[in-house]
């Protein structure tokens, strides 16, 4: 009884910590939240309407077992979507929370602390599940023939289905960390492990989505094939057979068995690994303190270079930051190489005998997309966080601080960008105007995205947030991420529009690049005009 009470207390504390971050964010960013809602609500409504229409059409076509399939769809969709979050939260669990050593001195069993942290991670993950799944759930409630058993499954199964992956991933990460803790190449191995996990998650999601959507894209009755989704997911998650039986036989006992199995596995793993997991969590803090010595040098440098160096020091000292910032550029370069290799497949016939090489358009679009995805300027100012006092009390002009952070973002873009550009020049052999136009596009789109994101960060700072991972998911990053959706239509649309206006790719690229650059200048002007005032709120 006492232990249960402890679990509840720690769980509430963990949730309070999470909630408190959110509350602080809301207090200081009420406008940001409003903008976020304005962006989110239409997307959400679109998802809801789309789900609703699909189910309605399916009913019209006489798909009688649509309700059963829809349940599997929800479970599958939500569980797959949460996998990425499991990797992240599992990793975060392994990181040292400041309170681990304090909790360790209190008369609380390790399993209680570990359980509370795992349950918190799952609840946080399930927020995302609910976000994805609820629109479909409402649609099914309206058109489906709901039974109590079905409703229970719909509500609880998606959350329970993440129990096992969360527990396994969390302990797996801790075990890997334990295995490599004394290695000379610890950081490299950690980085490699993180990349492998992300590749695994993407791979798994990709395999499931391929199985579920193969051949269905042209079919308006898209849910007809969704039994495949269930079967595909069953391959990776056999416990779902109990949900299937529960639905098919309308028998709640199977569902109860599923719940018991999930809770049982959670308890077994937590009890088995409690001491190991807790020791590792506390060890992380101690271990993080060990490092190699820097050479003592007194070289002077310009403050701009020093600020820039600081940004790179931050980047290269955090594996997750490295993955966040560099994974996409690496994928883009690999993609560009693949396109270059298979460039002949992209030559298509237009009007019978005119061959059109799509690579002339694809490379510039990849370069523009890459600039949109390079998001560091949307959070680097917030990342200063508790050490903001330091920069703000040194005799450094605010514009220099902003410029260094913008240039850091631009370097992260231009290094892979120039490689892709070189591949483009070598393999596609564009004419001078096209080559110059592509450069204009790179400059225009990177300037606009860098400064628009920095402006968003200035407008919506993550004040009072201590956790760097929470900062990287704060309002400014969310707004910048949603902005990408608009940019993905606008930027390529502008390029194609300019082509149709001028009948020349080269001139079209130049004009599109100039337009984007002019908008970029507008945001530079806004930052120069209001940045100093906005930056004062960062403290």
């Amino acid at each position, binding site marked *: 009884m006492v232990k249960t009470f402890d679990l509840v207390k720690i769980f509430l504390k963990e949730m309070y910590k999470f909630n408190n971050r959110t509350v602080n964010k809301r207090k200081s960013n009420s406008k940001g939240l409003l903008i976020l809602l304005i962006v989110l609500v239409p997307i959400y409504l679109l998802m809801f309407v789309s789900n609703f229409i699909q189910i309605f059409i399916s009913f019209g076509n006489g798909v009688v077992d649509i309700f059963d399939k829809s349940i599997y769809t929800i479970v599958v969709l939500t569980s797959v979507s949460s996998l990425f979050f499991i990797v992240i939260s599992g990793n975060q669990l392994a990181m040292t929370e400041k309170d681990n050593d304090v909790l360790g001195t209190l008369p609380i069993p390790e399993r209680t602390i570990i359980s509370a942290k795992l349950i918190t991670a799952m609840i946080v993950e399930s927020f995302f599940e609910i976000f994805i799944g609820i629109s479909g759930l409402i649609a099914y409630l309206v058109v489906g023939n709901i039974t109590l058993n079905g409703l229970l499954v719909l509500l609880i199964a998606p959350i329970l289905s993440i129990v096992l992956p969360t527990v396994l991933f969390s302990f797996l990460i801790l075990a890997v960390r334990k295995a490599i803790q004394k290695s000379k190449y610890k950081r490299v191995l950690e980085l490699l492990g993180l990349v492998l996990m992300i590749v695994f998650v993407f791979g798994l999601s990709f395999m499931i989505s391929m199985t579920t959507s193969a051949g269905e894209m042209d079919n308006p009755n898209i849910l007809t094939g969704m039994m495949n989704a269930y079967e595909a997911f069953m391959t990776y998650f056999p416990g779902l057979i109990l949900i299937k039986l529960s639905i098919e036989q309308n028998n709640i006992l199977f569902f109860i068995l599923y719940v018991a199995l999930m809770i049982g596995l959670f308890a077994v793993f937590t009890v088995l690994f409690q001491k190991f997991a807790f020791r590792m969590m506390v060890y992380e803090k101690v271990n993080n303190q060990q*490092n190699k010595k*820097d050479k*003592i040098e007194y*070289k002077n440098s310009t403050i701009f*270079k020093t600020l820039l160096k600081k940004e790179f*020091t931050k980047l290269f000292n955090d594996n997750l930051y490295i993955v966040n910032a560099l994974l996409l550029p690496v994928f883009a370069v690999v993609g560009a190489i693949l396109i270059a290799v298979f460039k002949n497949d992209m030559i298509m016939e237009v009007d019978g005998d005119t061959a059109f090489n799509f690579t002339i358009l694809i490379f510039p679009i990849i370069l523009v997309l890459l600039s949109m995805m390079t998001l560091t300027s949307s959070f680097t100012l917030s990342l200063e966080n508790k050490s903001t*006092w330091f920069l703000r009390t*040194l005799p450094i002009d605010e514009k220099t601080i902003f410029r260094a952070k913008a240039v850091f973002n631009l370097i992260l873009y231009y290094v892979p960008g120039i490689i892709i550009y070189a591949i483009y020049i070598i393999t596609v052999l564009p004419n001078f105007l096209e080559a110059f136009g592509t450069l204009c596009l790179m400059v225009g789109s990177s300037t606009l995205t860098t400064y628009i994101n920095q402006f968003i960060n200035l407008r919506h700072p993550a004040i009072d947030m201590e956790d760097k991972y929470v900062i990287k998911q704060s309002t400014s990053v969310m707004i910048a991420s949603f902005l990408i959706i608009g940019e993905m239509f606008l930027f390529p649309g502008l390029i194609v529009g300019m082509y149709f206006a001028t009948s020349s790719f080269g001139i079209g690229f130049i004009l599109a690049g100039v337009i984007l650059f002019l908008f970029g200048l507008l945001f530079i002007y806004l930052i120069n005009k209001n940045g100093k005032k906005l930056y*004062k709120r960062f403290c």
Partner: protein
Amino acid sequence: MLEIRNVYKSYDGKKDAIKDITLDIESGDIFAFIGHNGAGKTTLIKCIVGLLDYDKGSIKIDGIDVKENLLAAKKIFAYIPDNPNIYETMSGIQYLNFISDAFNLFETERKEKIGKYSEILDMTSKLGDKISSYSHGMKQKLVIIGALIHSPKLLVLDEPFVGLDPEASFKIKNIFKELTEEGTAIFFSTHVLETAEKICNKVAVIRHGEVIKCGEMSVIKKDESLEDVFMELLGEGDGKDI
């Protein structure tokens, strides 16, 4: 060196966190700013160093208005916060070089100053280590070294002795004395009244955002201890949270 005239600051637009504060700190002064928790000490300090905007009044450092020309003011003061939150990913030497770059210090100058103060504070062998490996006290020492390397005319410190071992506190007090003899003004907030009594020549007591006593230390405390004077000023009930 530091002129504070009728300064008001409110966080919510209703209640003043500090009100009508007027203080003068001359070159060579060590000025203690004491008060209970939440009295407004940190608010005033943050207004002085430009971290917070004040609503009314004026603050001048060496004749430079901090609202009008903060960048120029920053070149002549140094600030040490109550909590040494600094870049954990840097090493100690990288941090000190960062500050030296901000103040355009040449190699010889920074080498001399960093060498001198890190030797005094026993930090020489730790400068190559990552700041994340430092204890609270070591971070505090590093921030103090960083504040001293550009020879500021004014030092503004918020609870500078928190987390320091007795030896480090002693050495820092000696550094302060040495600096004031050279003409530096030091303004610091503290809860440690014995320290304030020992090293400061001036003192101001703040209560609920208002300065209730200010002047020469010897005049204010007369034959009593600073603690007795402070308790009398606050009233017995208010003094319990010191």
